[in-house]
């Protein structure tokens, strides 16, 4: 199977780019914004101002490229914990993401105009749900689509199969995006599956499967755009395999030196999606170092404002433990609620 690619490893276009100059600039800014968040989130984590955090460095293009094709108040995003970049690009406020990774309930709900389900921790469970969300759009007469993300390890779960099978049988408008990032914590992809390409699995469901260079924003964006268009037209789901690499640890608690070599990481760092996109813009004469500096400053300002906003969120109160379990508190929750408030 071919890997869809538009930029070479240095960002030089290999063929005609199906994106406008405005879109290329928008895409680059989104990548930089995601990277900025990731870098600063790790700093916050080390300062003790964030909980365990799963970084996505190196996987920005694979997430941003898909999210750029979706409308937050119309389409749906069901991300796993690694997809803060997708969430950010889709429309989740930075302050909410910070609160979410602080394990603060104030960060658990997306705003009403952002159809993103809180990051999924169990692996692949969101795929049957995404198929349901997508199928519901058709039953409701909408042309909205759902996009769901997992990693390569997630394809080993039964729910990957059940979800793809449901989506294909019901022709649901769904994008299943697998970020094949080489590792499921310490287990390499070769020990996860025997097939060469995850996209080949699509054949088993009678749906299109495509492998894309996940570090090439132009390629991911184009492939996702096509899949979204097909889904909106009622042509069913697509399995997208984005070949990428987790250059960062699994989480802020992980030590990847126990299971992989620095050389491997170095190799992938040279294929950095942001560097490639920047070189592409420079090649096309669309970008300058002055613009770069201006962007960095703007991103830092935005981030700091978001941290300030997150810091202002009230600490969750003990009785919130039993709130939002049911729409109306049932007798057992009510009793606990009163106890936690010191009223009983």
């Amino acid at each position: 199977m071919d890997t869809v690619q538009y930029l070479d490893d240095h960002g030089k276009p290999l063929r005609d780019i199906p994106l406008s100059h405005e879109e290329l600039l928008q895409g680059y800014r989104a990548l930089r914004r995601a990277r900025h968040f990731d870098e600063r989130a790790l700093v916050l984590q080390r300062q003790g101002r964030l909980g365990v955090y799963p970084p996505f460095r190196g996987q920005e293009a694979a997430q941003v490229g898909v999210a750029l094709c979706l409308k937050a108040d119309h389409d749906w995003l069901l991300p796993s914990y690694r997809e803060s970049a997708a969430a950010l690009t889709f429309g989740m406020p930075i302050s909410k993401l910070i609160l979410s990774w602080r394990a603060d309930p104030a960060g658990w709900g997306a705003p009403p105009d952002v159809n993103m389900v809180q990051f999924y921790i169990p692996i692949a469970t969101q795929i049957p749900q995404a198929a349901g969300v997508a199928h519901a759009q058709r039953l409701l007469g909408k042309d909205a689509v759902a996009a769901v993300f997992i990693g390569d390890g997630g394809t080993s779960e039964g729910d990957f199969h059940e979800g793809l099978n449901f989506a294909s049988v019901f022709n649901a408008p769904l994008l299943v995006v697998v970020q094949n990032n080489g590792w499921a914590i310490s287990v390499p992809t070769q020990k996860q599956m025997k097939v060469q390409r995850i996209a080949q699995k699509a054949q088993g469901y009678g749906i299109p499967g495509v492998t894309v260079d996940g570090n090439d924003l132009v390629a991911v964006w184009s492939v996702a755009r096509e899949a979204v268009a097909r889904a909106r037209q009622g042509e069913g789901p697509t399995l997208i395999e984005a070949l990428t690499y987790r250059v960062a640890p699994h989480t802020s608690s992980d030590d990847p030196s126990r299971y992989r070599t620095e050389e491997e990481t170095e190799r992938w760092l040279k294929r950095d999606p942001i560097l490639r996109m920047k070189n592409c813009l420079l090649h096309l004469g669309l970008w300058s170092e002055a613009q770069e500096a201006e962007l960095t400053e703007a991103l830092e300002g935005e981030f700091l404002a978001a941290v300030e906003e997150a810091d202002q969120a009230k600490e969750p109160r003990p009785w919130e433990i039993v709130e939002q379990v049911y729409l109306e508190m049932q007798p057992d929750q009510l009793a606990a609620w009163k106890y936690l408030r010191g009223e009983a």
Partner: protein
Amino acid sequence: MIAERETRVLNNVQAINEALDLALAQDPRVVVFGEDVGRMGGVFRASDGLQQKYGEQRVFDTPLAESGIVGFGIGLAMAGLRPVAEIQFAGFLYPALDQILSHLGRMRHRTRGRFTVPMVIRAPYGGGVKTPEQHADSPEAVLCHVPGVKVVIPASPERAKGLLLSAIEDPDPVFFLEAIKLYRGVKGEVPEGYYTLPLGKARVVREGQAASLFCYGGMVEVCQKAAEVAAREGVGLEVVDLETLVPLDTETIVASVQKTGRAVVVYEAMRTGGFGAEIAARIAEEALDYLQAPIVRVAGWDAPYPPFSAVENYYRPDAKRVLEAVRKVLTH
């Protein structure tokens, strides 16, 4: 109001079918799905005729995959529909436990109310009809241990219809377990038209002074039989059908114990860690001073439900074992 309505004699399956029919007619968001529920109308015919009436968009067959069915339903519900899924037998729910434990019950909580799952999962449960292996399980205790769900187990056609309509209207996920033995084993007057019965309420189905029998689903019939036998010997037993296990109507349970002073808890699942233990614990916590004898449980043995029908009646509690327990609490 319901009492004034015309009634018809139906069995449990017919009552459930009628509830599904009315829900589909009343609310366009309702969809009914599962393995065999469409064309065939369900293995027990609970959805008989509904696909013909409402079309394949609203009543549909799914691939044979329990995790898929529950997960798909969660997605439909989050997107604004009112899914009613059927799992062919409650003993087949196990592959879906990840969806149930990780998401069904806690989606509201983990998204702070942004996404909710107003879904009903119907599943036949329990023994007494000589089914093959795994078809007679009673996994209600497992389901009751999931935060954020409700668990309802009706025992009569009238209750089944009204409770199922309530479950479908409910804003939170509801397990609706239907005793296989009662599907065609009980008949009763069922009010015409759409009506709901409140979830979370137990009902005293027979009044008595000597001892209280706490039961639900398939065991209500067994306890009523035991109470009839006892009545012939001059012993008045009170039979309380719990009907909703979560949320549990502790008030009605405690009131009954306050009246009789003796409690027997009857359920057909394995005894250890079964839901009867929860009832016994609540009685001990809230009505210990009224007890004149230790609480006795009558339940399945600590073994899988026997896959050989010749001996299943030794596993599943019957009136004889209930009466033995009654004797125990009366002679303490």
